[in-house]
C-alpha cells in the first residue's frame, strides 16, 4: 500500500460537494479503499481513472445532499421580497422613476463609451499577421526636439531583409499624388506604390481578383470605393485606367483586383495600389539605394513577434550607415510598432501611415462614462437612504420574525440588482436607439453594438453587478444595522440628517458644474476658432490648382476679364494647400522650416500684411537670392535685425528682405511654423490665387467653374473659396462643442433629477411638521426658507469647490485638444453657477408651492 499517493484533488472536491455529510465518511472510505488497492494492483494512472469513474457513478440520489432552497419557507420569503420591492417601488413612483431612469441613462452612456472603445481597440486588427508585421520608425532631431518619424530611408528595407534572419518579408510604400482617368471620370487621387509583399503582410481581403497580380508592373488594385467611383457596380477586372503623374509621365494600368469594403475600424487603407517599381515614374531622381531618399513606410514581417528585440539590437549598423550620408538629419535610433498596437502610438509618429488621436484623448470618454455612472449611483444611494426611512417598519417586522442582518442585506442588494437589471434593459434600448446614433452623428463615426460579441456580455454583466452592488451596498448595510426595538420605539430616525447624503449631493453638483462649464466654454471656443484670424484675408480669396505654368497663364488670361477680381497671383505653393520644407543653416545650428515659392503679387492677393522691409520686385528673375520670412521665423531663430540678414540654404547665401505677419499654412490644430517665401519660377506655377471684390467671391467662383470647364474639360477643378480649405477642421471643432453640450445636458438632467427626488423625499418626510407650522400660522416664506436653509449651505460649499475645479479641468481639456485654444474665461463657470442655482430654486420652489397649497388637515392625517 502506498500512503504517499493521495486521492486526486478535483474529483475528491466534487465528491465532497455533492455528498451528504453523514454518508461521506463511509462512502469515501469505500472509494479510497478501492483506490489504494488499485494503485498496487494496476498502477497509479489506472487507479486514478477508476476513482474518477467511481466518483461519477456514485453521483446518485442516495449520496446527494438535500438542497436547502427546496424548503417552503424560502420560496415564500423570496416571493415576499419581490412583492414588497414592487409595492415600495410603486408607492413612490417618482423616486423609482428617477432611480431607474437615471441609471438607464448612465448605463446607456457607458454602452456608448464601450462601443467607442471597442471600435478604437479594433483598429487595423483584422490583418492576419498583425502581431508579426511591424512599422519601422526612427527618432531624429529636426526642430530642436527628438521626434519620431514614420517615413524611413529608402535603402533600409532591402538591407534589413538580407541581414536579419528573423525577417520573412519586407514591404515598402510610397505615396504619389496623381490624376486618374477612365473615360469621362477624371479625379485627383492618392496612389500608393508598394512592394507585392504589401498585400501578403496586410491582408486586405479582395472582392475580385488576385493580390499576387501586384507583381506585374502594369497592374493596379483598387479599393471598393474607388471601383464604385470609376466603374459603378460592375466588375472592372481587365479594364485599363490612365494614371498621370505630377512629373508629366503617363501610364496605362490594368485593373487586376478590387478590395472588399474596408472595415470601419481601420486607419491604414488605400485607394490605388501599384507595384513599387513604378515610383520612378513619379520621381525620376528617386534612388532606392540612397540614404537621402525616403519611402513613406517600411513594413517588416517576422517569423516570431518576440524576435523584434533581436532586430532592434541589430539596428545600430544602419544608424552608422545613415549618419554620414544623411548628415542633415542624423537618425538617433530606430523603433518598431506592430500593426496590432500601431494606432495607439500613431499620434506620436510624424509622417506615419496612420493618424489617430493622442493617448490622452482616449481617456476622455471612459472618464465621462464613469462620471455619468457615478452621478446615477449617487442619485440611487440618496434615494435609497431616503426611501428606507419609509420602510423602517418593514425592516423592524422582518427582524422580529427572525431575519438576521445578512438576510436584510441580501434582500436589499437583490432588490437593487433587480432594479439595475431593469435599468440595464432600458439602458440598452436607449443606447441602441438614441445615444449611439446621436453620438455617432456627433463624432462622424459609424458604430454598432454587436450582440454576438462575448466581451459585450462580460461588460454588461459586470456593469450590472458593479452598479448594483456599489449603489446598493451602503444603504443595505446601513439599514441592516438597525435594531428592531429602536425602530418600533421610534428612536431610530435617519435619512434627514445623514451626512453622506449631503456629500453625494455636493459631489453631483460639482460634476454638473464641470460639465456645464465645459459645454459653455466649448461653445465659446467654436466661435473663437471661427473668428480667429488666419493671418490673411481668407474670405475674399479663391484659388485653383493648375497642372503647370502654361495652364496657369491660360486660366489667368480668361479670369483677368472678370471685373470682380481685384488681384491675381500664381504660386507654386499655397497657404492651406501645400508647402515644401527647407533647411536653414545658421552658424550655430540648422532649422527645418516651411518653404513656399510664390509670385511677387501673392502677398497682396492673399492680404498678407508686411511688417518690415519689402516684398519681391515685380520684374522677372529679380530677387532670386531673396527671402521673405514670417514672424515666427524671426522669433525662433532669434534674429534681432531680420532685414538684410544672410542665411544659408543648401550652401547658397540668401538675404532676408522682408518680414510678413504669421499666417496659418495649416489649420489651427497645428502651431505656426517658421516659414520662408521665395520667388517662384513661372513654369512652376501650380496654383492661381485671386482676390475678389468684397461680397463678389461667389460670382467669381461660378465664373471660374464655367471658364475651367471650357478650358480643361478633361481635368477636375481642384479649388474654390479659400475659406473652405479647412472645412474638416471646423467640423471637428463643431463636433467637440456638440459633444460637450450633449454630455452637459445629460449631467444636468441627472443632477436635476437627483436633487428633485431628494428634496421631494425630504419634504414628504416632514409633511406633518409643515402642516403644524401652517396651522400655527407660518407663511409661505417661512416654509420656503425652512426647506431651502439646509440646501443653501450645501450648494454654496459645492459650488465653491466646483467652480475652481471646473475652471482648471476645462482649461486642461481645451489645451489638450487645441493648439490655439480660447483663452480661458469665467463665463463658463458663471453660467454653470447660474444654471445650477436656478435648477435648485426651481426644484425647491415647486415643492414649496405644493406644500403651501396643500390643506394642512390632509398633511396631519397621513401616516
Amino acid at each position, binding site marked *: 500500500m502506498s500512503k504517499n499517493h493521495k486521492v486526486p484533488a478535483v474529483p475528491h472536491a466534487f465528491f465532497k460537494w455533492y455528498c451528504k455529510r453523514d454518508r461521506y465518511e*463511509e462512502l469515501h472510505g469505500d472509494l479510497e479503499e478501492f483506490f489504494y488497492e488499485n494503485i498496487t494492483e494496476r498502477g497509479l494512472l489506472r487507479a486514478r481513472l477508476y476513482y474518477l469513474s467511481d466518483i461519477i457513478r456514485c453521483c446518485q440520489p442516495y449520496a446527494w445532499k438535500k438542497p436547502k432552497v427546496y424548503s417552503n419557507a424560502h420560496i415564500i420569503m423570496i416571493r415576499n421580497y419581490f412583492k414588497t420591492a414592487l409595492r415600495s417601488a410603486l408607492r413612490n413612483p417618482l423616486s423609482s422613476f428617477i432611480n431607474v431612469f437615471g441609471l438607464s441613462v448612465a448605463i446607456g452612456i457607458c454602452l456608448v463609451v464601450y462601443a467607442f472603445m471597442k471600435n478604437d481597440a479594433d483598429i487595423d486588427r483584422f490583418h492576419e499577421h498583425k502581431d508579426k508585421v511591424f512599422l519601422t520608425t526612427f527618432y531624429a532631431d529636426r526642430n530642436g526636439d527628438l521626434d519620431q518619424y514614420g517615413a524611413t530611408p529608402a535603402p533600409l528595407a532591402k538591407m534589413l531583409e538580407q541581414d536579419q534572419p528573423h525577417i520573412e518579408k519586407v514591404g515598402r510604400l510610397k505615396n504619389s499624388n496623381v490624376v486618374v482617368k477612365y473615360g469621362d471620370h477624371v479625379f485627383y487621387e492618392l496612389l500608393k506604390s508598394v512592394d507585392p509583399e504589401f498585400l501578403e503582410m496586410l491582408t486586405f481581403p479582395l472582392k475580385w481578383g488576385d493580390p499576387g497580380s501586384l507583381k506585374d508592373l502594369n497592374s493596379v488594385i483598387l479599393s471598393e470605393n474607388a471601383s464604385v467611383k470609376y466603374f459603378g457596380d460592375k466588375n472592372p477586372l481587365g479594364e485599363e485606367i490612365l494614371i498621370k503623374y505630377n512629373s508629366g509621365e503617363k501610364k496605362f494600368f490594368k485593373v487586376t483586383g478590387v478590395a472588399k469594403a474596408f472595415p470601419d475600424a481601420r486607419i491604414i487603407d488605400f485607394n490605388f495600389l501599384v507595384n513599387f517599381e513604378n515610383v520612378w515614374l513619379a520621381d525620376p531622381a528617386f534612388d532606392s539605394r540612397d540614404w537621402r531618399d525616403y519611402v513613406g513606410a517600411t513594413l517588416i514581417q517576422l517569423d516570431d513577434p518576440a524576435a523584434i528585440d533581436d532586430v532592434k539590437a541589430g539596428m545600430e549598423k544602419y544608424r552608422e550607415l545613415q549618419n554620414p550620408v544623411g548628415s542633415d538629419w542624423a537618425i538617433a535610433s530606430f523603433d518598431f510598432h506592430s500593426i496590432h498596437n500601431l494606432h495607439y502610438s500613431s499620434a506620436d509618429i510624424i509622417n506615419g501611415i496612420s493618424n489617430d488621436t493622442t493617448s490622452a484623448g482616449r481617456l476622455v470618454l471612459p472618464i465621462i462614462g464613469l462620471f455619468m455612472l457615478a452621478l446615477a449611483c449617487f442619485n440611487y444611494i440618496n434615494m435609497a437612504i431616503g426611501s428606507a426611512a419609509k420602510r423602517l417598519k418593514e425592516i423592524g417586522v422582518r427582524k422580529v420574525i427572525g431575519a438576521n442582518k445578512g438576510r436584510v442585506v441580501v434582500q436589499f442588494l437583490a432588490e437593487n440588482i433587480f432594479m439595475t437589471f431593469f435599468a440595464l434593459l432600458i439602458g440598452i434600448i436607449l443606447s441602441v436607439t438614441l445615444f449611439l446614433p446621436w453620438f455617432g452623428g456627433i463624432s462622424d463615426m459609424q458604430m454598432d453594438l454587436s450582440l454576438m460579441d462575448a466581451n459585450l456580455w462580460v461588460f454588461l454583466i459586470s456593469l450590472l453587478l458593479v452598479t448594483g452592488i456599489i449603489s446598493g451596498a451602503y444603504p443595505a448595510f446601513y439599514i441592516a444595522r438597525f435594531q428592531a426595538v429602536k425602530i418600533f420605539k421610534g428612536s431610530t430616525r435617519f435619512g434627514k440628517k445623514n451626512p453622506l447624503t449631503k456629500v453625494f449631493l455636493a459631489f453631483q453638483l460639482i460634476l454638473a458644474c464641470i460639465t456645464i462649464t465645459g459645454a459653455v466654454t466649448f461653445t465659446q471656443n467654436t466661435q473663437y476658432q471661427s473668428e480667429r484670424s488666419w493671418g490673411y484675408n481668407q474670405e475674399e480669396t479663391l484659388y485653383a490648382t493648375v497642372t503647370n505654368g502654361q495652364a496657369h497663364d491660360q486660366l489667368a488670361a480668361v479670369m483677368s476679364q472678370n471685373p470682380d477680381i481685384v488681384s491675381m497671383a500664381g504660386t507654386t505653393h499655397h497657404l492651406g494647400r501645400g508647402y515644401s520644407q527647407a533647411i536653414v543653416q545658421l552658424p550655430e545650428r540648422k532649422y527645418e522650416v516651411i518653404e513656399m515659392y510664390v509670385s511677387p503679387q501673392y502677398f497682396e492677393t492673399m492680404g498678407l500684411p508686411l511688417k518690415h522691409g519689402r516684398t519681391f520686385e515685380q520684374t522677372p528673375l529679380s530677387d532670386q537670392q531673396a527671402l521673405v520670412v514670417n514672424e515666427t521665423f524671426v522669433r525662433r531663430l532669434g534674429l534681432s535685425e531680420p532685414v538684410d540678414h544672410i542665411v544659408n540654404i543648401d550652401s547658397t547665401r540668401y538675404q532676408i528682405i522682408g518680414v510678413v505677419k504669421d499666417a496659418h499654412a495649416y489649420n489651427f490644430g497645428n502651431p505656426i511654423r517658421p516659414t520662408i517665401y521665395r520667388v517662384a519660377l513661372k513654369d512652376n506655377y501650380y496654383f492661381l490665387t485671386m482676390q475678389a471684390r468684397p461680397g463678389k467671391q461667389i460670382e467669381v467662383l461660378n465664373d471660374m467653374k464655367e471658364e475651367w470647364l471650357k478650358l480643361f474639360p478633361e481635368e477636375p477643378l481642384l479649388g474654390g473659396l479659400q475659406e473652405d480649405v479647412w472645412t474638416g477642421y471646423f467640423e471637428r471643432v463643431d463636433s467637440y462643442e456638440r459633444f460637450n453640450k450633449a454630455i452637459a445636458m445629460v449631467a444636468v438632467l441627472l443632477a436635476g433629477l437627483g436633487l428633485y427626488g431628494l428634496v421631494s423625499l425630504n419634504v414628504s418626510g416632514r409633511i406633518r411638521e409643515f402642516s403644524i407650522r401652517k396651522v400655527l400660522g407660518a407663511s409661505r416664506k417661512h416654509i420656503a426658507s425652512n426647506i431651502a436653509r439646509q440646501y443653501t449651505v450645501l450648494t454654496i460649499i459645492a459650488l465653491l469647490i466646483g467652480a475652481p475645479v471646473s475652471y482648471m479641468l476645462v482649461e486642461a481639456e481645451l489645451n489638450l485638444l487645441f493648439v490655439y485654444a480660447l483663452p480661458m474665461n469665467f463665463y463658463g463657470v458663471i453660467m454653470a453657477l447660474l444654471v445650477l442655482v436656478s435648477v435648485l430654486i426651481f426644484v425647491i420652489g415647486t415643492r414649496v408651492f405644493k406644500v403651501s397649497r396643500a390643506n394642512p388637515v390632509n398633511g396631519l392625517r397621513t401616516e
Partner: protein
Amino acid sequence: MGRSHLGEFEELVLLTVGVLYDDAYAVAITKEIANQSGRSVAVSAVHKSLYRLEEKGMLKSRLGEAESKRGGKRKRLFNITPFGKKAIDESMDLRVHLRNQISDLAFNWQAD
C-alpha cells in the same frame, strides 16, 4: 412498504451480506459478488442497493472501526434483519416452488 419484493441484484446483495456475516461492508460485498458470479460490479450499484435494502428494513447497519487502508475512515457494516431473512426465504421458496412445477416434458428436447 410499497415494494417488498426483491430485485435480482438486490437479492444478490442481500444474500452476500448473509454470506459475509459480520464483515459485510460495501467493498467486501462488491468483491464477493464479483468473485462468485464472475461479473464486474460497480461499488456505486452496491451502495445503492444496500441503502435501499436498509430503507426497506431488510438490513440493519452500524459503523465499524476506522482503518488505515481506508484513509482512516470507518466502514458501515450491514446485517440481515429477520424481515430480510423472510424476504430471502420467500423468494427462494417461490423459485423452488415454480421450478418444481415445470414438468419434465418441457425439458424433453429430443422429441423435436
